[in-house]
């Protein structure tokens, strides 16, 4: 299993991505300076509430964002390594032409949509939807081979081949989502973007599908960008997580690090918004207020009106993403919070010791058994 400790080389680098909705005077900034790196085989979680820009980011980097979305800056470098090849070719997806983009799409970068109900063409049979991209991207395949591949793909996600001639409306919700995943993996891409792939499903079905997905990932080695509002699920699932708020990435780090020692007050608030399944029942408060609308963002740090630790500075200056003072060692943590800059006294909740050993095997990562602080905290 690829863990954040020994990551592969980068496969997707997003640099300073900016996205607007609308052009000219009416434009609303939806994403500001998003910078993220996805490594080969990594599961990168993108968490945030509605309107935080997580889906916008995902669709913008694939240039699938609908009108009136416009990309207004940045780079998306895709280190493409076509199947069976050892050489890596770097494509800037934002500078790529139609044809260049078309070649990368699905064969190396595929997407699983939130609602398979809407993402599958209602008037086409499953087999047609599983093979149309083979016709385009694998021109040498015969009809017979395509059919075999379709059967193989369905089997891979636990669906029998007699469903091949079904229409989407004849399948259950879970099955449709499985078909969608099979479709995404048809060309063995290096990166799969998943936009809330299991949100619409029941908890048991969700768990089944996620299990299968993780097994497939281990077997096929693709990297995943997993978008969800359910941070509690993401912590179990992802290697590393980026938290978004009002169009900016506010914290980034390993999944377990983030959970056990959040550095941004918003992350802390989110973690404390999920009631626990175990232990004492204690009253939790969540985060006061509600997420801002992109059309009327507060000045300074967009989170400051809801932040219990807000400083004067927070309402004036926008914090940049940088290594928190609470982590001086070599972890890949970043947070966009003035509390985490030099010279600040970090509140205790935001200065919990970062475990040097993380990511630990799951059995040792429980909250109570965190390693002792390594002395880096003031």
């Amino acid at each position, binding site marked *: 299993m690829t863990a954040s400790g020994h990551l592969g080389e980068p496969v997707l680098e997003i640099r300073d991505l900016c996205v607007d909705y609308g052009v000219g005077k009416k434009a609303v900034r939806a994403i500001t300076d998003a910078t993220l790196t996805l490594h080969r085989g990594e599961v990168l979680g993108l968490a945030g509430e509605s309107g935080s820009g997580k889906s916008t980011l995902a669709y913008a980097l694939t240039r699938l964002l609908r009108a009136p979305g416009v990309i207004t800056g940045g780079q998306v470098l895709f280190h493409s390594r076509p199947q069976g090849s050892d050489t890596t070719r770097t494509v800037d997806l934002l500078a790529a032409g139609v044809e260049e983009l078309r070649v990368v799409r699905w064969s190396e970068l595929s997407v699983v949509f939130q609602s398979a109900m809407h993402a599958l063409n209602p008037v086409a049979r499953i087999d047609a939807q599983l093979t149309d991209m083979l016709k385009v991207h694998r021109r040498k395949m015969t009809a017979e081979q395509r059919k075999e591949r379709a059967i193989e793909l369905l089997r891979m996600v636990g669906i029998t081949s007699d469903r091949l001639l079904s229409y989407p409306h004849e399948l259950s919700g879970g099955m449709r989502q499985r078909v969608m995943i099979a479709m995404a993996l048809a060309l063995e891409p290096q990166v799969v973007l998943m936009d809330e792939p299991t949100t619409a499903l029941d908890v048991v079905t*969700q768990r089944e599908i996620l299990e299968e997905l993780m097994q497939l990932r281990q077997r096929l080695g693709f990297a995943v960008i997993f978008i969800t509002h359910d941070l509690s699920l993401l912590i*179990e699932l992802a290697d590393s997580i980026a938290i978004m708020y009002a169009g900016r990435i506010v914290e980034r780090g390993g999944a377990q690090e983030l959970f056990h020692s959040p550095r941004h007050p918003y992350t802390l608030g989110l*973690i404390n918004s*999920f009631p*626990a*399944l*175990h232990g004492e029942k204690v009253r939790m*408060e969540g985060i006061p207020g509600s997420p801002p609308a992109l059309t009327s963002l507060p000045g300074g740090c967009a989170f400051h009106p809801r932040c219990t630790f807000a400083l004067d500075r927070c309402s004036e200056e926008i914090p940049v993403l940088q290594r928190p003072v609470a982590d001086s060692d070599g972890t890949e943590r970043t947070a966009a919070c003035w509390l985490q800059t030099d010279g600040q006294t970090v509140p205790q909740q935001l200065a919990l010791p970062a475990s040097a050993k993380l990511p630990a095997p799951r059995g040792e*990562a429980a909250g109570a058994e965190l390693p002792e602080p390594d002395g880096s905290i003031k």
Partner: protein
Amino acid sequence: MTTPTTETTPRVVHGPKRPGTPALEARNLTKHFPVHQFRGRQVVHAVEDISLALPEGTVTAVVGESGSGKSTLARLLTQLITPTSGELLLDGKPVGTSARERRAYTSQVHLVLQDPFSSLNGVHSVRYHLERPLKLHRKPGRGELDALAKSLLERVALSPAENYIDKFPHELSGGQRQRVAIARGLAVQPRVLLADEPVSMLDVSIRLGVLNLLDDLRERERLAILYVTHDIASARYLADTVVVMYAGQVVESGPATQITDSPAHPYTQLLLSAAPDPSRTEPVELRGRGAPPSLVDPPSGCRFHPRCPFAMAVCKETAPPALPAGGDQVAACWLLSPDHAPTTAADATPSATDE
């Protein structure tokens, strides 16, 4: 093996155990929806013989997957749909079904719906939404109306009320809308508040605010609250008692923490094993697979048996009664019956209760 003890078992009433008459009691509620098939008529067994007591000042959570009948149960309790059989008792008195009695009932029992974006009508202001139930049920004087409506907003922590009362739904955030929806429910001065997934459409960071509001109302207004949800963690957080539904039936009920800490029914165990849990220390081991059954033609015996890792011969034949599982916890599972519990294979025992 073949002599089930069901027939003689007394009716089990789920819900928090409190002395006195419960605010609302449902007895043997059953709802079968007719489906028109090409040949013959069949029914969807949506809710099957459920007895439930909601004492004042308590929260009862109903947990289940979609299609488990939990929303139907809530609507049966509002009399929005008429049960196939069974009866409702408000403060111990049977509830009539005449149009007049139904209207009187609407002032006692209120339902808060899932989607705050569609449960308020976009063409009406917050004031309209709050004043309608007041006019319908409390008939206050002209001067009183405004003050009452504003006090409702204050009660759901939308203050100062002046800032909200003349707004339209599209000017409010999801959490604020859900608070208005709850305030509208309080306007009728109900004894019972039914909340059908009240937070599942809300942003994560504001869910707790609404749940805490429900808890405050339970405490402050002594409401009997039914909290319908698919999220077992939030059920544990808010509720005194958790009732787990599967395929139209109650499979397990008991005190909230007891249910989540030591689930007795294999389905509850499955739900818990599937729930997201960031502090989980071991990889997930799903207990059972597959999908819920068709409710048109539900499985014989225990409806969970096709998915149950512990299914025995008796499970296919006879539906298990609600059997005691320690304390106030009951579970409808043959594993708990001394007549049927497997004695040989230790690994076949559902772990939690006996450990």
